[in-house]
């Protein structure tokens, strides 16, 4: 097993003159190359912060993070890392096609190489007919697909997904689950996805990590041994799915009861 992402005692404490709030206590994790890991936990538990720290958007205040063996420097995105946000990230003044090619233009690829690669990606996500559309002309699901293609265009080895389907309706969500799963099976990236949706986590992941409320730590590291290829929708009908869901919820549900809205320990942490 080759470790792609390593978190070693990673912590995050926000300090101001009056207060100190420890959002993340100490998280240690190893994520293997090609693994699909979902991170769940009560809201406010620092799931997104954790992803942000792996991407170099925010500095960790304790511990160390490496991606592909290279220590993450705050302010610099690690090589080969893609990130998908829940919020809209397509640029409204570019067409779908131009958006997908943005990263390739950043990399100064030849225009015909860009066009070729963009065509292939649009085909992959069935967005070909919308190539010339501006983002305001397409649905939220299509915009999120476009954003995924923008990321994939850069051939990331690691994909960080921060509740990427949180704003979408359930039908669109299921379609995107299938597409994402297919892409992952074909290209074999290492995927870490933060989600609120436990069903989604169990249906997609090889491993589900449950974080506690702040100061958060790993409560449960639960492997999902349902063999691939799976259909992320049909798998929900299986017994194995139900058992995994039950096992994870036993831990997560208790944590939700402890911090129903994830705010109690925020006030408790002020020192």
């Amino acid at each position, binding site marked *: 097993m080759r470790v792609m992402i390593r978190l070693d005692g990673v912590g995050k404490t926000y300090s101001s003159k009056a207060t100190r709030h420890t959002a993340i206590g100490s998280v240690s994790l190893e994520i293997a190359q090609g693994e699909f890991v979902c991170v769940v936990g009560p809201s406010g538990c620092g799931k997104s912060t954790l992803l942000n720290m792996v991407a170099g958007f925010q500095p960790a205040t304790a511990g160390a993070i490496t991606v592909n063996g290279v220590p993450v420097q705050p302010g610099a995105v690690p090589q080969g890392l893609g990130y998908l*946000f829940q919020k809209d990230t397509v640029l409204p003044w570019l067409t779908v096609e131009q958006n997908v090619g943005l*990263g390739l233009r950043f990399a100064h690829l030849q225009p015909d190489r860009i066009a070729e690669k963009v065509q292939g990606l649009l085909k992959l996500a069935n967005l070909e007919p919308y190539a010339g559309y501006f983002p305001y002309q397409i649905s939220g699901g299509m915009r999120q697909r476009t954003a995924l293609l923008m990321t994939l265009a850069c051939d990331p080895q690691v994909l960080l997904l921060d509740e990427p389907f949180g704003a979408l309706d359930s039908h669109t969500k299921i379609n995107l689950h299938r597409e994402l799963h297919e892409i992952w099976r074909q290209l074999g990236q290492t995927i870490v996805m933060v989600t609120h949706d436990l069903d989604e986590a169990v249906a997609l992941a090889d491993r589900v990590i449950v974080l506690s409320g702040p100061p958060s730590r790993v409560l449960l590291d639960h492997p999902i041994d349902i063999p691939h290829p799976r259909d992320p929708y049909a798998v929900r009908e299986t017994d194995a799915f139900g058992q995994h869901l039950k096992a994870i919820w036993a831990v997560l549900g208790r944590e939700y009861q402890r911090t129903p809205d994830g705010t109690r320990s925020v006030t408790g942490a002020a020192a």
Partner: protein
Amino acid sequence: MSSTMESLHTPLAPPAAPPARHAGLSDDARVRIYQLVLLALFLGLWEGLTRVPYLIKNTFLDPFFISRPSLIAEQLWAWTFGAQAGFLMPHLASTLGATLLGLAVAGVTGFAAGLVLSQNPILARTLNPFIVCCNSLPRIAMVPLITMMFGLGLLAKVVTVWFVVFFLIFFNTFKGSLSVEKHILQFCQTLGGSPRQILWSVRVPSALAWTFAALPNAISFSLVGVVIAEFVGTTTGMGYLIVSSLSTLNASEMFAAITVLGLCGVGLVSLAERLERRLLRWSPQFNER
């Protein structure tokens, strides 16, 4: 009898739609018609009231002060095709040239300054009180000084316009550039964009939308700036025409010059809107029909 039976068995007709008063006319056409009606009403009142002897004698509604549309039209004809044909054009060209040049200089420098300061928070905070101070100065009152410093020609006019319009463009560009959401910048970073690439492909286009929002005001203020600069000391331009007509107490000449300026404003702003529509065609605000 049969007709009664028929009406009893006829299902209730849906309530008749109110007759469309302008059936077949597009909104655009209706707006044009309303505009023409409003204009006709205004000109008609002006023309009519300045012909009532009582009003002429007892109020300001005296063609000596405010002329009247027919006299203004005669004056415009005289300046363009009539007795003084060719008189208007050099003045108009001088004013328009100074306006467009001033606008261009203010636009480019304001846009650049807005972008640079939005990228340098320390610089922006340092300069903020000075910028607010400059923007609060009574610039119109400083036109005589500007004229003394930069002479009686084009340069003084351009400097005046720059001084008036720069801040409009600057503040809007600054706000627009800062309004880009953080996660979009971070996303572009993960796509491998360097700070320079992100500046050009994200900050500039999104600031541009805000800059355009300032353009109609910028155009109108530019015209005002040029005309006021021309009041103080030049021998060409629409402002000069206004001042010289005042000194000869010729209201028709003055209003003819003012009419030309107003038309220039409308023309320039509508050109700017067309350009905006073209450049911002990705924005839903121009596609909601």
